């Protein structure tokens, strides 16, 4: 038998003998034409009916009433399962009409067939299926043998329609029936509904039996018998091994083609931090996946960028999007986008980045790093770290050699120039005051302002950091020249600024805002003259009530020393009015009622006893005053003939203080003596500023016009230990020691603040307090009039 590609239009009816239905189509066509008369020759031309043709052939050849797909049970009943598909007889009509032009012929025999077929096959079929079959049969198939018709109907499945075939078939059948038996129409007919027999399709008997059932014993016996049989089988003559050969059916090659399985490589790199990120952002994942789904763009980066733009709140959220999309995309894509969140376009990219705060911070850090590279040796020297040469550079060795040569050659002390704080802004301005931040020892505030009444221009306060000597970290512009500065110790971010016009302002250096926190310009009692000195003084010790805590105290040219309180604005309370002592004019006492106040230029609180302070005036007097008594001075020290620019207590000796004045002298006083102990003068230059060294009790620095001097009383009290001349035309105007290292800062009239390191100072273990006291004692004992001589020199 050869195979034909028969269209699979049959149902499960084809249980057996399916091979018989497969015929060579050409053979079928020829035979069919010869055998059957009613079959339309056109049928043969269609593969559509090849199946039906084959049936016809089969029937004619085999001439057997039942040849295929009839299942009978043991009682001879036909229990052939019915097909579930029922072709619609109503629809069948037009189609057969196209294919079978001899449709009329087929229909003429229709009425005969149903009744005949019904009767013959009633024994085997029950149910509505048969009716539909007949309907379809009559419409599509014509044959002389009724049995073949019924068989063929079962196998015919070419009609696609399934609509209400049953009802139509039934209607037809009943019509036919009534035509036959009209006479019995009025009779009452009993209809009996019976259940069809159960059709077993599959019956697998159970292999296990319950122990309670009756058969259990029998089953057990049989089992035992079987096991014994198995035991006996071995070596028993009753059982002989015999082999059999089975026929091998002809092999058949069947090819099946399936769609190619596309393989996609997927990989995810799981790292510790990736898992951590996903875990942290678990809650946000659903939100982000919704958003990214809404983005609905073809490329993954864009969808994640959409979600980034819509969720700008957390930077972590973008990472979570990536953790979800990374599982979707391949590993390479994941790597690329690992650390990035992508904005949609290029242009806003640059703008967004440049304006972000993080970028500014990064830039600032980068600037410091670059500068640290450049200034590394200088900063190391500043911080008293060993200066290590850069192993990669050859050029600077030459510089360093020349540099170290000088230091090696001269064993005498000198000032080593480290670097200069200067920038465009500060050019041409006069440095009036410098102060270190109390909390951050690397932060320096420098005030720029003219000290003379002429050349007044708006002042400037710059906060420099040691880490960036080329540009200040903070810049505050002030309306008038800055004359005094001080950082608060309690609130390290507050910087009080005293101006030439008498205003006191407090700035917050944490921000870059140009406006101060508070200004004293609204205060009624504000100073009318330049504020020459400011100090935050901590009155923790001893005082009760509202005076506890830190207070700002200022001295100004209008002769008042005031205490400022920050309470809804700055309010001031006068601590002292610097009355000038009685002046004798023309042998007459000046009227004491007319009080003239001497402009105060400086003051200094005692380091140990915060109630006592010294104040220097323009007249050259130094008054010792008490905080709690604002009527009179405790004592007055008169020695200077010119305005006293600076008065400062020694940080180590509680009784000793220094004062400097424009009369070219520096005096060392002891507070119980009304005359200075020592006087220092070298040259006829005004002394602008002095400061005790915070490390050594016998060392102090002084700034004269054109020179910077470092005095050490152990070495000599006549000459300064180090004299460093500044460039011509430039006057150093301010001096500041560094509290932690042995460097000194000098501010000059060109707006530069130079950092020097004190080298080759005579070493001393302690702070040399005894040395200072020794010096004083010897001086006192030897020469009482030293101060006078110095003054006259």
């Amino acid at each position, binding site marked *: 038998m050869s195979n034909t590609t028969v269209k699979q239009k049959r149902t499960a009816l084809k249980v057996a003998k399916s091979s018989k239905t497969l015929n060579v189509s050409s053979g079928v066509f020829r035979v069919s034409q010869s055998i059957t008369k009613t079959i339309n020759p056109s049928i043969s031309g269609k593969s559509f009916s090849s199946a039906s043709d084959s049936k016809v052939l089969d029937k004619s050849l085999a001439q057997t009433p039942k040849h295929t797909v009839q299942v009978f049970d043991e009682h001879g009943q036909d229990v052939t399962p019915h097909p579930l598909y029922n072709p619609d007889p109503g629809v069948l009509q037009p189609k057969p009409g196209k294919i079978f032009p001899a449709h009329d012929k087929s229909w003429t025999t229709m009425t005969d067939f149903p009744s005949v077929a019904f009767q013959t096959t009633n024994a085997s079929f029950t149910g509505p299926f048969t009716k539909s079959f007949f309907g379809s049969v009559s419409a599509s198939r014509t044959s002389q043998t009724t049995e073949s018709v019924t068989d063929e109907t079962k196998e015919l499945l070419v009609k696609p329609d399934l609509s209400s075939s049953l009802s139509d078939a039934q209607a037809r059948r009943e019509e036919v029936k009534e035509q036959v038996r009209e006479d019995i129409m009025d009779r009452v007919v009993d209809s009996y509904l019976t259940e069809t027999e159960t059709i077993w399709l599959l019956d697998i008997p159970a292999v296990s039996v319950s122990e309670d059932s009756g058969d259990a014993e029998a089953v057990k016996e049989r089992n035992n018998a079987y096991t014994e049989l198995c035991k006996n089988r071995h070596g028993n003559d009753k059982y002989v091994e015999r082999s059999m050969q089975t026929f091998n059916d002809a092999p058949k090659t069947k090819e099946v083609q399936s769609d190619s399985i596309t393989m996609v490589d997927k990989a995810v790199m799981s790292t510790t931090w990736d898992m951590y990120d996903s875990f942290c952002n678990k809650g946000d994942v659903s939100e982000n996946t919704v958003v990214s789904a809404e983005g609905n763009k073809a490329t993954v980066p864009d969808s994640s960028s959409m979600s980034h733009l819509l969720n700008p709140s957390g930077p972590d959220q973008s990472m979570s999007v990536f953790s979800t999309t990374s599982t979707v995309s391949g590993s390479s894509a994941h790597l690329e986008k690992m650390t990035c969140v992508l904005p949609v376009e290029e242009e806003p990219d640059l703008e967004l980045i440049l304006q972000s705060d993080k*970028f500014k911070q990064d*830039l600032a850090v*980068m600037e410091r790093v670059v500068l640290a590279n450049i200034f590394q040796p200088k900063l190391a020297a500043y911080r008293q770290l060993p200066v290590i040469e850069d192993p990669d550079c050859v050029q600077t060795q030459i510089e360093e050699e020349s540099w170290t040569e000088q230091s090696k050659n001269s064993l005498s002390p000198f000032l080593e120039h480290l670097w200069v704080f200067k920038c465009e802004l500060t050019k041409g301005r006069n440095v009036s005051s410098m102060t270190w931040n109390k909390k951050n020892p690397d932060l320096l505030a420098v005030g720029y302002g003219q000290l003379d009444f002429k050349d007044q221009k708006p002042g400037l306060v710059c906060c420099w950091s040691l880490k960036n000597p080329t540009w200040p970290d903070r810049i505050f512009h002030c309306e008038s020249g800055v004359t005094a500065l001080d950082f608060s110790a309690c609130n390290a971010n507050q910087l009080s600024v005293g101006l030439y016009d008498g205003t006191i302002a407090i700035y917050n250096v944490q921000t870059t805002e140009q406006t101060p926190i508070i200004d004293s310009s609204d205060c009624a009692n504000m100073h009318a003259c330049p504020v020459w000195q400011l100090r935050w003084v901590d009155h923790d010790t001893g005082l009760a009530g509202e005076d506890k805590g830190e207070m700002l105290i200022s001295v100004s040219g209008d002769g008042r020393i005031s205490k400022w309180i920050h309470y809804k604005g700055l309010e001031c309370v006068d601590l002292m009015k610097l009355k000038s002592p009685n002046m004798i004019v023309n042998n007459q006492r000046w009227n004491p009622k007319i009080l003239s106040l001497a402009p105060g230029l400086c003051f200094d609180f005692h380091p140990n006893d915060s109630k006592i302070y010294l104040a220097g005036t323009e007249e050259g007097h130094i008054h010792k005053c008490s905080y709690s008594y604002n009527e009179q001075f405790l004592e007055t020290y008169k020695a200077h003939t010119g305005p006293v620019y600076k008065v400062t207590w020694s940080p180590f000796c509680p009784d000793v203080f220094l004062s400097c004045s424009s009369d070219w002298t520096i005096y060392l006083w002891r507070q119980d003596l009304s005359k200075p102990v020592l006087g220092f003068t070298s040259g006829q230059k005004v002394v602008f500023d002095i400061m005790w060294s915070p490390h050594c009790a016998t060392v102090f620095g002084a700034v004269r016009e054109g020179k910077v001097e470092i005095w050490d009383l152990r070495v000599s009290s006549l000459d300064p230990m180090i004299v460093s001349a500044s460039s011509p035309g430039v006057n150093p105007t301010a001096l500041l020691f560094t509290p932690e290292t042995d460097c000194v800062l000098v501010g000059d009239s060109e707006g530069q603040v130079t950092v020097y390191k004190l080298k080759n100072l005579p070493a001393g273990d302690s702070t040399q307090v005894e040395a200072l006291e020794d010096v004083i004692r010897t001086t006192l004992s030897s020469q009482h009039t030293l101060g006078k001589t110095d003054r006259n020199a």
Partner: protein
Amino acid sequence: MAEVEETIKRIQSQKGVQGIIIVNAEGIPIKSTLDNSSTVQYAGNVHQLLMKARGMVRDIDPQNDLTFLRVRSKKNEIMIAPDKDYFLIVVQNPTE
């Protein structure tokens, strides 16, 4: 904005600074003071190194993150300030 430009100019004018490159998140340089080919080279290579470095730091402790990276070589030093949206590269030869 002007402040940022000024700062960039200041850095550029420091001693030994050879160039500043600002690279966006994708690794595409968006601002540079070097020539094109060098910029592209730096940007591409630094990007990879940065990812490795960051991965390493976070692998050891996921709560940590990379804040700054400096690569010192014989001829110069490359300083990188990374961030999620960008990274900033400065190349300096401090011994010039």
